[in-house]
């Protein structure tokens, strides 16, 4: 898998696999760009369907952008373990001396860097088309930042459970969406509250707490799921 055949510390294990996935993503920019285009297109669907009234756009902006981000993340989560499963790297990960949960965390980190963070960066561009004031956009980015972390982590569990399954794509969405609903509720509605001038600290604290919570259990759940799916 890599040149690290002497016993490695956990952090370098995480960094190692993250680096590898990032390199792979670098070589295939489509993997990063396509979900971003998807995000923009899904967001565009709403004004197309509902009509271009600016007040409506402003009102629905946070929600639409959040839903589009959620769907984009789901799309990219599908392939989290897929290529490893297909080319045998997953088997190697299973027998590696590095703890599987560390490897899972590393892959999830790379996934977030290539799918979640780009969404955060690109969101202001799409937000402008929804008449979103800059002050609100800042909060949108913050909630997306926190939310996508949780989504990557939760998503990795789902991806591990469904890797290699027939029709795994739809199943993954079915598994992850109910779990993602609190993130969506807090993410989108907190941003809407900004627009109306209410306090948003509570919502942000929740998103941060949720990210920490998922960080603490998701790698282990993902590791367990990987073992189960691949015996």
């Amino acid at each position: 898998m890599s040149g690290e055949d002497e016993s490695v510390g956990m952090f370098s294990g995480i960094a190692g696999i993250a680096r590898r996935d990032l390199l792979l993503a670098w070589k295939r920019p489509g993997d990063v760009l396509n979900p971003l285009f998807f995000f923009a297109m899904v967001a565009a669907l709403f004004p197309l369907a509902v009509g271009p009234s600016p007040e409506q756009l402003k009102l629905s902006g946070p929600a639409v952008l959040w839903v589009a981000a959620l769907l984009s993340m789901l799309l990219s989560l599908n392939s989290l373990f897929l290529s490893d499963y297909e080319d045998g790297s997953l088997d190697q990960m299973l027998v590696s001396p590095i703890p599987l949960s560390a490897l899972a965390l590393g892959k999830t980190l790379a996934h977030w860097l290539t799918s979640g963070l780009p969404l955060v960066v690109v969101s202001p561009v799409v937000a402008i088309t929804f008449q979103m004031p800059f002050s609100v956009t800042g909060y949108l980015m913050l909630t997306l930042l926190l939310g996508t972390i949780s989504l990557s982590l939760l998503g990795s569990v789902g991806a591990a459970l469904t890797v290699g399954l027939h029709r795994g794509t739809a199943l993954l969405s079915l598994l992850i969406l109910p779990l993602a609903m609190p993130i969506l509720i807090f993410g989108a509605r907190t941003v809407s509250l900004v627009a109306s001038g209410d306090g948003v600290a509570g919502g942000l604290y929740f998103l941060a707490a949720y990210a920490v919570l998922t960080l603490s259990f998701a790698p282990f759940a993902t590791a367990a799921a990987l073992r189960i799916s691949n015996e």
Partner: protein
Amino acid sequence: MWKFIHQLASPPHFYRIAQILLPWLYVPGLLLIGYGTYAGLFLAPMDYQQGDAFRIIYVHVPSAYLSMLAYMTMAVSAGIGLIWRIKLSHAVAAAAAPLGAWFTFLALATGSIWGKPMWGTWWEWGDPRLTSELIMLFLYFGYMALRGAIDDTSKADRASAVLALVGAVNVPIIHFSVEWWSSLHQGPTLIKEGGPAMDPGMLYPLLAMILGFTFIFGALLLRRVRAEVLFRERRTRWVKNLVLSGGN
């Protein structure tokens, strides 16, 4: 006592003992539901705000309560099965899921019907209980879908157990999220959360219904687990002997 519990984990013993337990669950359950229904519909005083429509509480709350009890049963037994590798435990989880889904559906349907005369709409996204019940229904569907997608029973058991546990962590979070937002906006709720401040004439039938439903859930669960066990153990000697001797 310990021996009894240990024996319970053995499929043939469980199969036999469960059958003996069934009437002990059905009879009290039906009696409690009978009393609860009669008292709830005809004896309990009318709610001054909602009129007689509030009587729907006597089926809505028990089904909502059971939808959550079933999920906890599913998650706990899946966890026990995963950690201690007890096959029977996995069978309990598998059996609990469809029951839980039905109760969740019932909670949603009765909640929706209750909402119509109260709010004028068939659905109210602002009601925290309805929204979290809906999410829970999706959790059940996901669990059953995952089970269905994996052919190997043992794999399906363990994979769905991981899912059930992750979901269990999220259930309180989901409830909290929806409640929190509802409280911010004072959304309409079906039940004023001043539960125990209820008139005893209103409360006792409700408690009876909740308890009665729980007994019936237990009976239904035991039935389903027996069928699960029979299926999973279909190639074993004890099952063959059982069927050959025409046993039940």
